[in-house]
């Protein structure tokens, strides 16, 4: 996972986007969820995948 600075900047960007869509107050009320999704995005983006990794479902493996 990348560092806390990156998470902070992603949270800020998402909060700004939310504020432009739904207003500042609404965006602030979503802060906890936005922080959670920011962390999840960073973790998923940081995970090393092989080009052969495909989106299998359970019954296909």
């Amino acid at each position: 996972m990348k560092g806390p600075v990156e998470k902070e900047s992603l949270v800020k960007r998402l909060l700004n986007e939310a504020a432009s869509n739904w207003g500042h107050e609404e965006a602030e009320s979503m802060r906890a969820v936005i922080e959670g999704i920011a962390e999840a995005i960073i973790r998923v983006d940081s995970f090393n995948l092989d080009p052969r990794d495909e989106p299998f479902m359970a019954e296909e493996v």
Partner: protein
Amino acid sequence: MEAYKLGISKASELIHCGALTPSQLLEALLKRIELLEPYLEAWVTVDEEGARLQAERLTGEAENGRFRGALHGIPVGVKDIYYTSGVRTTMGSPLYGDFVPKVDAASIRLLKEAGAIIIGKTETTEFAQADPAPTRNPWNLNHTPGGSSSGSAAAVSSGMCQAALGSQTGGSVIRPATFCGVVGVKPTYGLISKRGVYPLAWSLDHVGFFTRSVEDAALLLSALAGEEHGRPRELNRPPRIGVIRGYFPELAHEEVWRGHEQALEVLRDAGAEVLDVPLPDVFEVVPSAHRVIMASESASVHEEMFRTDPHGYRRNIRAMIAAGLMVPASTYLRALRIRGRFIEAMSATMEDFDCLVTPSTTTPALRGLESTGNPAFNAPWSYGGLPTITVPCGLTRGGLPLGLQIVDLPLNESHMLGVAEWCEGVLGFPKDPHEPI
């Protein structure tokens, strides 16, 4: 024995031999609902008229020696996100407050073909996400029954019906089943059709259900997925069980972990081989990948309605949809690709075992109705689409149920039921309905 206490298997046996009619069974359950519903609030709609008509029809058929299937005359509750022809289906949201589907969900059709009676629609969190239903836990009315399939779990636990359908995207079957002290099944992804079930996140959504015994779960799964999946495979020896030691002990509440260790001791004493299993490296990213997919797909499902009426949604789901709309497509696709890696890794981990086990929930049922609990112990298996079942395994000091979650390989339900039946027999948790008052 009073009819509401019967499990599916026994009730079916009595109906088949003429000692009980579907109408008698239905009336016993309607009486039970009348008694308990003011305390539990498990139902959105009880379809007394429709259920009585169907019970009379099935009673007539039984009197003439005609039986539709193993569920002939068995009343079943249905989570209020399943389309039910002619019966209001609200998704737990005022946005669908007056919605009456014209068709049945595929699973409802299968239940009816097997002779089941749809007794009514059970409470759900809003759109099966996290904003709670009003339902209370039959084991302690001051505690949550879990969610999102809150009403289904409470109804089966308290003897208002013998089985009920739920759905799971994170932990919405296994968690409420555990909190309410019943058996909950989440089969392999796609084993039971989701057609006609309102989606939360389509690549994570599973049809699942609640019963008070593994034997009854097997009958229900046979009706919904075929006997080849629903018939428990007999074990020729006590099972070889893998106990996951990473992630779960760190997140488990002290009483949950103690109960888990005690249950494992009971299984070991009965002859099970219980061995530690390390988690594969990919597991560390799984909760995040699950969260990314759930938010992205939910946002896509609700995008049009959300842009028109964001305040038609309650707080939790509104925030999740808003966040999901901002997830980059590249991140969503990576989360899907990680799933393949995870399933392969878990399949390899399970090769040497009959099953893996974990505690079914991070905590016992939480006090209050503000939160339905944490899906952290269930979401990985919803993400991977692996089949799971929870069997009750004990009580906390305060008298709240705990569960043992059993995880098996994809499409290995028959084997999973066999293991669960063995564990259930050894653990010896009571199967009678719980008396909430």
